[in-house]
């Protein structure tokens, strides 16, 4: 399980658990929202699958654009589900299959040789699955004569003997639809020609049939992975059962998910690290220039888990007893503070999203010395950090830190340390 927030719990003091009503109902609603989010993600992936099938059957600029649109439309539901990743081991163990970043794009398809400082044609720049029916990877011989979901999640994955999902998932599909973003800090996303999927002599960059095979295999794999996860949250599913098994542990899962995504993952790894490293592609949805949406919907997912209310892709609403109501019962002011901070984060995220949609893309914001961009990103980072402090206070006030402590009473005693 990811533990980016759990460490914060270590500093809180165990207090007697107040008697709170309806924890089971809160957890039930939490699981219902998860189910709805993964079902919406799955529905979006199936629409993407249909669009990909059409592109491969009848390649055209319009068909490629339709597939890109379907990909973009599939992301909001998935991003809102990410808050479930932290605190729910079953999600975290699986997540790398569908949303891993960075991507080993040079392993998948052709890449521009200007990246990475290579100055001339290099034979290794074309050693990718699309162009090669067989090659060695990580010391193993790979038979890629037929590109299937089994190849992607089997041989390619196992060659590294590692959970290095660098060639599957949303971002692999994104790369195959958009291609590399060669615009650096300038405006513009990846601009793969539709003819990369054209038949016969119209095919550009070679191996259009195999590129289509890869795209289809990756999309089919995404659909089956999301089907599996949606089932884990349905009645009787393992993820739902795990959450419901222990009420306090379940409430801890919600808070761990909110805190970990807010702090270490989103404020830290996904946003501040990009600012520090000034990498235009050190962002989540880099090929499509969709990173502002990725961040926005991640933050929205944190908020809707706290409020216990999620608006589905079709506009219907799943809502019920919430963590907010539990907190309000113990400390109404703390609940008001949490809601206020979640709203403040959404305001910062909205500013960032609107700026990006007006043409100030996330990769442009990341350019070194771009003060306006840094201010937009750091405004959101600061808001996420600030909301984390309140989440920590909620952990303490609900007294739900069920993590076992062993022989550590002395830690809070200053006399226990040599000064």
């Amino acid at each position, binding site marked *: 399980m990811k*533990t*980016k927030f759990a460490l914060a719990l270590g500093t809180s003091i165990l207090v007697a658990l107040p008697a709170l009503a309806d924890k089971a109902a809160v957890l039930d609603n939490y699981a219902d929202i998860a189910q709805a989010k993964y079902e919406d993600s799955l529905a979006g992936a199936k629409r993407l699958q249909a669009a990909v099938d059409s592109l491969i059957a009848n390649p055209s600029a319009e068909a490629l654009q339709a597939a890109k649109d379907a990909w973009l439309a599939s992301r909001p539901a998935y991003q809102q589900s990410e808050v479930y990743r932290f605190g729910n081991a079953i999600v975290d163990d699986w997540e790398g299959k569908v949303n891993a970043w960075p991507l*080993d794009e040079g392993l998948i398809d052709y890449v521009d040789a200007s990246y*990475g400082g290579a100055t001339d044609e290099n034979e*290794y720049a074309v050693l990718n699955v699309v162009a090669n029916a067989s090659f060695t990877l990580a010391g193993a011989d790979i038979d890629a004569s037929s590109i299937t979901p089994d190849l992607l999640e089997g041989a390619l994955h196992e060659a590294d003997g590692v959970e*290095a999902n660098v060639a599957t998932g949303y971002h692999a599909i994104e790369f195959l639809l958009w291609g590399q973003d060669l615009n650096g800090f300038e405006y513009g996303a990846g601009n793969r020609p539709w003819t990369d999927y054209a038949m016969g002599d119209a095919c550009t960059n070679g191996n259009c049939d195999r590129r289509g095979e890869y795209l289809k295999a990756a999309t089919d794999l995404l659909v089956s992975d999301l089907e599996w996860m949606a089932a884990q949250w349905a009645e009787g599913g393992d993820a739902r059962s795990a959450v419901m098994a222990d009420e306090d542990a379940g409430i801890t899962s919600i808070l761990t998910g909110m805190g970990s995504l807010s702090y270490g993952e989103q*404020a830290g790894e996904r946003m501040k690290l990009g600012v*520090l490293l000034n990498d235009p*592609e050190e962002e989540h949805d*880099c090929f499509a220039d969709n990173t502002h949406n990725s961040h926005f919907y991640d933050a929205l997912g944190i908020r809707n888990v706290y409020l216990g209310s999620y608006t589905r892709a079709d506009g219907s609403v799943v809502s019920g007893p919430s963590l907010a109501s539990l907190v309000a019962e113990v400390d109404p002011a703390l609940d008001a503070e949490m809601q206020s901070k979640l709203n403040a984060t959404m305001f910062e995220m909205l500013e960032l999203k609107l700026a990006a949609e007006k043409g100030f893309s996330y990769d442009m914001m990341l350019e070194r010395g771009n003060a306006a961009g840094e201010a937009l990103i750091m405004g959101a980072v600061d808001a996420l950090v600030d909301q984390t402090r309140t989440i920590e206070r909620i952990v303490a006030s609900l007294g739900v830190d069920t993590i076992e402590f062993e022989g550590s009473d002395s830690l809070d005693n200053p006399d226990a340390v040599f000064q």
Partner: protein
Amino acid sequence: MTHRFAAALALLAAPALVFAADRLADPHPTAVPRTAAEAARIAAVTAPTTEFGKPEAFETNSAGAATIPARAAARGFLQPAGNIDFDRRLEFELGNAMFEKLWVSSPSSTLASDGLGPLFNARSCRRCHVANGRGHPPLSGDDSRVSMVMRLAVPAPQTTALGILDDQAARPDPTYGAQLQDLGIAGMPAEGSFDIAYEEIRVPLSEGEEAWLRNPTYSLRELNYGDAHPDLRLSPRIAQQMIGLGLLDAIPTADILANADPDDSNGDGISGRAQIVQSHEYGAPMLGRFGHKAGQPTLRQQVAAAFHGDIGISSTLFSEGYGDCMPGQTRCRIAPDGSTEHHDNREIGDIGLDLTTFYAATIGVPARRDVGDAEVLRGKAVFYETGCISCHTPKFVTHRLPDQPEQSFQLIWPYTDLLLHDMGPGLADNSPEGRANGQEWRTPPLWGIGLTAQVSGHSFFLHDGRARSLLEAVLWHGGEAEAQKTRVIEMPKADRDALIRFLESL
């Protein structure tokens, strides 16, 4: 840097003064000097106890204020120091992100995450340092070798190029380099793999007990770049646990050198030699502290060396984008490189390297368990009376470091002297490194050792994980520790059990 070079010359000119603390550069020039009163307090608090009836003051907190609660779950080694503040915790998270980053091959859209290999042992730091715990040898012929690497060395004529006395001057294998990389990016054959064969050795103990030690033999296989050098020495090494490293980095050099006794002038059979290696950061010879033979002088250089040797990532300290590839490995040498202007023309820039170093420096050390338990206290007495503390030094006080509040002025209990000791032919890899000869190893820290099973799910110890339990690890001690081992073999079973119980409480 002139004064540091002068220190190097002093090593050559006056061997007797080699270990004089003021002659070897300390990696913390900004440390606040100790007052005489402080020095006296530190001497008093770090003196080994002679009272075993109850725990010592501060004993529970192995890392002082940097100690963290001992967690029951596998994440015991994943938390930041207990005294880190909220803002710096975010830096810790960024460092964790660097530690978990999956490096990808170059060229790639990302500027900050590419440059893997071309030959490598792992794609990320975390891949080997699972849960920040100790690595292990492969459990079967097909098991992953990822938390154990095979270092390669060929003995060479001694040189005084760096001005370091007694430097053993090993060099890399001319074909395979300093480490066997068993993975490669697409199209790049891996260098090869290795096999381990174990032979069981029976060790009779007092009171009719016995133990079995497994003696390993290593061999290379599937070498893809031709024969290795005929005099190649293999040095298998498991990934080390990651806790408290910044605190070890912050021990004053003088305090470590104070325990060195290269000529065994006190006649206790234990020498303790300082490793001295070149610091690429300071451009001078420095005390080696990190690695199984203390081959790296600072944590930052240790981190950079691991990026370079294990993942194939260049930095300002190790500049080759092709990692450990040798001149004959031409395909590897000409493969695309992930360095960029934005990152100091290296694959990982100083910002990323510093974040990773901060993370590695600031991982918390779990508190002791059961310090007041009667058997633990009995075992502690056995540990002290048997002479284990001659090398496994219980206590140090770190430098006062204004810029490193988590490591500053803490009483720590690492149970290591960070010096080199001859451990006898049984443990020898016959592979020299710096001043360490083929029988010498750096005393490993023992803090957290009792949490190995909880954190890593196994109980393999020593540099190559050959010991399957703490008792086996003790019984492998030889050389300078031969007498101590013999006492463990001959002591009453109850004392031996108590000794292990004490180690488990660390």
